[in-house]
């Protein structure tokens, strides 16, 4: 992927995270930088869980495949 192709992808993701942060403020009615960043971290944490799990599964699968290739 070229650098300029990353721009729309990152933009979508950043906007998506922002949209996920907003409901917290709509319901509580309080908005400040500290709570905004805390909410961003929370959302990123939940986004990171599937990415982390997928990465672990991929590494395990790759390791198994490599060890199978060495034995065969």
């Amino acid at each position, binding site marked *: *992927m070229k650098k300029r*192709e*990353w721009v*729309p*992808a*990152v*933009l*979508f*993701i950043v*906007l*998506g*995270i*922002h*949209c*996920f*942060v*907003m*409901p917290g403020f*709509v*319901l509580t009615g309080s908005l400040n930088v500290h709570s905004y960043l805390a909410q961003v971290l929370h959302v990123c944490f939940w*986004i990171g869980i599937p990415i982390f799990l997928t990465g672990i599964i991929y590494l395990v699968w790759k390791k198994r495949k490599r060890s199978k290739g060495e034995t065969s």
Partner: protein
Amino acid sequence: MNTIFLKLFGSVLFLFLIVLLPLGFVVQQIFSTYNESHLQEETAELAQQQADLLPLLDERRLGLLVDALSENTAREIALAGANGEIETSSGVEEFSPAALGAEGTYQDEASGREYYYAEAEAASNSFDVTSVYVFSPKHLLGGSMNELLLALIWAGTGSILLALGFTFIAARRLTSPLRSMEKAARQMATGNLNVQVPASSKDELGSLARSMNELARDLKQFRNTRREFLSNVSHELRTPLSYVQGYSRALKEGWYRSEEEKQQYVHLIHDESHRMTRLINDVFELSKMEEDRFPLAWELVQIEEIAEAAVQKIKPRARQKGIDVSFDADPDLPAAAADPMRVEQIFSNILQNAVTYTHEGHIDVTLSRQNKQIWCRFSDTGTGIDEEHLPYIFERFYRTDKSRSRAHGGSGLGLAIARELTELHHGSISVQSRTGQGTSFLIQIPAAEEEEE
């Protein structure tokens, strides 16, 4: 933007909308129902609290209770007597419990507001109030539901944007090799066969990329072979044709001094036309062999008989050059399934080459059995072939000595035909040679299986 990328992108957006819109509707319904029941419970509890307070109040405090509930909250209160008539209320004067029942919804016509209301029976008190009705306005729910809806819309939009962002990356990475392949295929279509598609992955796309690279290599080889073939054929035909043209013109113009010279020219024209015919026949046969359209008359044959016949045929020519040809075959050689005429053609081509390039010494033909194969070895003590030429000697028109080979009269197709015919017989042909010491060809032909016999 390529179409597959847009399709992937559009599909994910479509899937998310399909899932998120009904999910949003259901979540909103769940919250709405929950809030309504919560408000009803709260109203009933409040009515009970007010009813429990009644026996403890005097006239003045009763008025305060009604006013406090009405002014400090959005709720209203009504107190009914034993006859079912409303004794006092905080703004819902037209409410008639007899007509509407103990709990439910009520719309006040004066204010236009809609309420949930609940009744609680009052303990005995000094005001003769038997029932307390508390009214909670429905618009209390509306505000929180709107906030919830807005939060759901934010979250839904966020999930769609996140999905699009990650789909963008995935789609780009997935379609990137496809775009490279499409570009390579376009270049191949315009004749550029030097293209290479990156094939780093081990999945189906990697396999496809490797196949495309192989295809490009094969096409390039085919194109080079075709060019070389056309160039060789035209070159091989041009030389005898120029002889025929030159000598026929000499005859036509009478450029000869004697009848003997005239006959010499006629012989030369005949020889060259014979050479062209043989060349054209060889090319035709070879092309049929390469396209697997070459018919073979299969039968069970004794290879040693065919080899011996080929040796006998070459012996007179060898004798003229003073070369000795020996033949030796194992006594118990098995039969083989083969076309005898074509097998003899293989042997003849090899033997003719051996006689042509052997100036003194001998040619040995030995046949033996090795496992399930018949090995036919043709060794000579001729000029031999340089190592650099060995990998190419079975290619069409390949000549080790281009300046002298025409003098020997070959078409340059003998060994190519021998290899093709051997392979058509499911056999193999190989060569070993040393410059100045001689050459040895080994032809391996599979022996017939018992059921074939």
